[in-house]
């Protein structure tokens, strides 16, 4: 049983999705999805535990075919870490989102929602677990197609346009990725990532390898929403149903960053992609642009979901900045921030979902007086804001500490200055919301507000408390991230 786990956590959601599509009853589908997601979480945590305990990667040969011919599923520390993240968020969003899904999605579509949700989770887990370049593409398509559907389920009619926009951009990204994989396949004759890495060593300077690499990186950057390829993200986040936004923001871009790291460090290798190409410089410039352009745009948003979406563009910049620092400390910061950002942004989007439900809109001006009427939601917003700013004692501080230390190791004082400056922008855009909610009186003729349903508040607060807890006890995030960095950079430095 235990050694079949890698296949099980992919196969079970896939089958469960089909079952949901047949049953279509809201309660049953929700229960199935919850049980499956939670089981995936337990499975992922078990595998991560095993890898940590025995110090040895889990390799699973699909259908018994040995790699490089057959497809290999591989769980190392990094993969285990991201698997835990994805399945954890998937479970939490299911608990959180039932009420808001009922409210925001048409009744006859509830069954489809859970079908697509399971498919999307399956795809995301698959991208992480597979050790095969083409198989990763397949999972990428599974997760993306289901994600487009999920976004299009949004109540606002603009959701359809947003989903379409995402579909076009996402397809371009996936196509570029597969062209890159194709180029690598023509020169190496293999699709297994580990095998690719080995066979590419003598071929790295060939035009085909470099072109393949360029296609893959640009394609993945589209999926990551790395500035300036982020244009699909704000609309997708803003118009998707609240639960979908929480799930999407916390997982989809993170998984693509994971895949990018796999290519940079495992397939092409640190010695080539980081040391011999201008990739770090390019990523550095784009990350800084993402951080500042994203935060600046967030300052002027009236729709708070869009504001948080632009903030995500900026936060993705922090994660990629760690890659660009090209040292172990910076990369640790990156990996830690993948987890930290998922937790804090997930929580914030959950709170916004509650606001959308009670206030009826997510416009800033309609939130006047929400501080008094929805104290748990708004104090949660304050706490999440602290974490985004990077106040010590929250997870945001831990990530920024590592990024700043990584920059100092390279002697880049100015990066530290820019990091701090960007925190101030976060302070301003989060502060706007807090001021409106706490200091502006609710208009007399507005509908009276009350707190969002308990299931939403409780899940969001679990995440918020995790923001604080993981801000003090960093043994899980930093511990695993440091080990994973050793794996990624192993032998390269």
């Amino acid at each position, binding site marked *: 049983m235990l050694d079949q786990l890698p296949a099980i956590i992919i196969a079970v959601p896939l089958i469960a999705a089909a079952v949901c599509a047949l049953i279509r009853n809201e309660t049953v589908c929700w229960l199935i999805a919850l049980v499956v997601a939670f089981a995936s979480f337990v499975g992922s945590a078990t595998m991560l535990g095993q890898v940590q305990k025995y110090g040895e990667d889990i390799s699973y040969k699909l259908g018994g075919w040995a790699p490089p011919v057959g497809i290999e599923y591989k769980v190392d520390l990094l993969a285990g870490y991201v698997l835990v993240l994805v399945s954890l968020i998937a479970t939490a969003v299911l608990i959180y989102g039932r009420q808001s899904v009922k409210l925001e999605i048409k009744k006859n579509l509830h069954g489809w929602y859970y079908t697509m949700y399971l498919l999307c989770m399956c795809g995301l887990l698959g991208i992480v677990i597979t050790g095969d370049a083409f198989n990763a593409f397949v999972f990428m398509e599974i997760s993306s197609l289901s994600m487009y559907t999920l976004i299009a389920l949004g109540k606002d009619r603009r959701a359809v346009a947003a989903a379409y926009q995402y579909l076009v951009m996402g397809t371009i990204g996936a196509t570029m990725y597969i062209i890159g994989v194709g180029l690598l396949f023509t020169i190496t004759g293999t699709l297994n990532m580990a095998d690719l890495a080995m066979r590419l060593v003598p071929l790295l300077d060939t035009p085909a390898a470099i072109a393949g690499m360029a296609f893959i990186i640009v394609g993945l950057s589209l999926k990551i929403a790395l500035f300036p390829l982020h244009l699909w993200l704000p609309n997708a986040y803003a118009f998707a149903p609240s639960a979908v936004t929480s799930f999407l923001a916390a997982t989809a871009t993170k998984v693509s960053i994971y895949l990018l790291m796999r290519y940079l460090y495992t397939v092409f290798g640190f010695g080539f992609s980081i040391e011999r190409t201008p990739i770090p410089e390019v990523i550095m410039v784009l990350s800084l642009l993402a951080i500042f352009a994203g935060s600046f745009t967030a300052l002027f948003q009236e729709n708070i979901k869009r504001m948080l979406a632009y903030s995500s563009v900026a936060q993705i910049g922090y994660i990629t900045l760690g890659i660009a620092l090209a040292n172990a400390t910076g990369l640790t910061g990156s990996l830690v921030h993948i987890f930290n950002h998922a937790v804090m942004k997930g929580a914030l989007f959950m709170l916004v979902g509650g606001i959308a439900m009670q206030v009826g809109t997510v416009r800033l001006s309609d939130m006047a007086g929400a501080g008094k009427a929805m104290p748990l939601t708004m104090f949660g917003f304050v706490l999440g804001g602290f974490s985004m700013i990077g106040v010590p*004692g929250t997870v945001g501080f831990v990530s920024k500490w590592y990024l700043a230390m990584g920059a100092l190791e390279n002697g880049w004082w100015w990066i*530290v200055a820019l990091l701090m400056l960007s925190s*101030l922008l976060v302070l301003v855009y989060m502060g706007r919301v807090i001021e409106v909610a706490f*200091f502006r009186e609710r208009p007399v003729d507005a509908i009276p507000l009350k707190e969002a349903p308990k299931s939403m508040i409780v899940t969001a607060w679990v995440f918020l408390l995790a923001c604080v807890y993981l801000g*003090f006890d*960093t043994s899980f995030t930093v511990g695993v991230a440091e080990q994973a960095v050793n794996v990624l950079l192993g032998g390269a430095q």
Partner: protein
Amino acid sequence: MTDLSLFIVAAMLIPAVGAGLIASSGSRPNVREAYTLVTAALLFGVVFLLVPSVLQGARPATEGFDLLPGLSIQFVIEPLGMIFAMIASTLWIVNSIYSIGYMRENKENKQTIFYTCFAIAIASTMGIAFAGNLFTLFLFYEALTLSTYPLVTHKGNDDAKAGGRMYLGILLSTSVLFLLPAVIATYFIAGTGDFTVGGIIPEGESPYLIAALSILFIYGIGKAAVMPVHRWLPAAMVAPTPVSALLHAVAVVKAGVFSVVKVIVYVFGLDLFSGDATSWVVYAAGFTVLVASIIALGQDNLKRRLAYSTVSQLSYVVLAAAMATPLAIIGAAMHITAHAFGKITLFFAAGSIYTAAHKTEISQLNGIGKRMPFTMAAFTIGALSMIGVPPTAGFLGKWYILSAAMELKDWFVLFVIFVSTLLNTGYFVPIIYRAFFKAENVPPAHEHGEAPWPVVLALSLTALGTLALFIFPEVPLALAKALVGQIL
């Protein structure tokens, strides 16, 4: 030693638990205020039980809690922190008595939030006082900023909102833009942030780096209000008077200058800080002392005049610490103590006048000394302490700072102290003169005498404290000497 480390934890837990109890007693004002007083008394007891062993040279410490490798939360008590904790815990009791009188008489709303945030702010202050390393100091420094924000915006009107925005904006942005990079850089350069006698910055670092680091620290610690980062302090005066009194005259600003002294003594070390790279600090502080006094001269609003006087007095401490000689550091520590007692008395008096007579401007104060003799007598003692006239506590601090300047033959510092003393006299004596020697030109809108008795009691106590510190300065002086005794 273990029982002493328990006391340290207790000093932070007592106000924190108190805050919880206060918050839970919302609708029962008597219970709420009883909790406040009991918590304050307990804290006072715990802090003073620590004094004897610190005087004997013990440095009680808690186990470090490792956040990240090399980055830990730890508390260590050294003499300067002891002084700060004594000031804050003593004045919290007096201030609580005062608050009860003031808040009830002025029928302020949201009093439960007020008392809760106050207790949290005190817990943060204890964290700052006992911080054993830079990171811990930074953590509680930010906690103090955030927990006092609801107090500054207590009134909830547009003025309060604008004041609060200025307050949070300046304090948070300076700490994030300058202090945090300074902390990170220190950890990076020194490999540690533990406060160590003699400093932790390794020898041989370039003077440019030292100068840059000192700029980041001095302006990053916005609570010390060295110009131009002083604007938050007058802005914070929109808060109710007890907040201005304890937080903006004692805990918050003292946390600022305390951090400056602490950084100079334990991070840079006196040897390094007396070098050329950091000599600019003396001039920046001297400039603030003079300019803030001149601005104070022109303020008619009593609380604003006191606020600018605070800005000026804080830079005395920075000025003293920047001279970086043992005598000057003793002066800085004594001035922290003296200013705390003197300034809280002045703010209490201002609040007392507001409560009884509803007056806020100095030009309205003619003849008020006859109606409110206790208040104005206390005000006079506080003002004399600001000027530095014996027999008040202010004389001691100034004496040590002057001696240090003489020893260094630093004519700039001597000039600053001389001129600022004249200016202090210039903006305090006219108030006293008006109150006692001018007749009321307009009869007050309503007949009034003194403010409610808790208010009068509180301001009398702090005024007596200002006198007592002059006569019995042994304990703070011994601690201040212990602070430099190890450096010598």
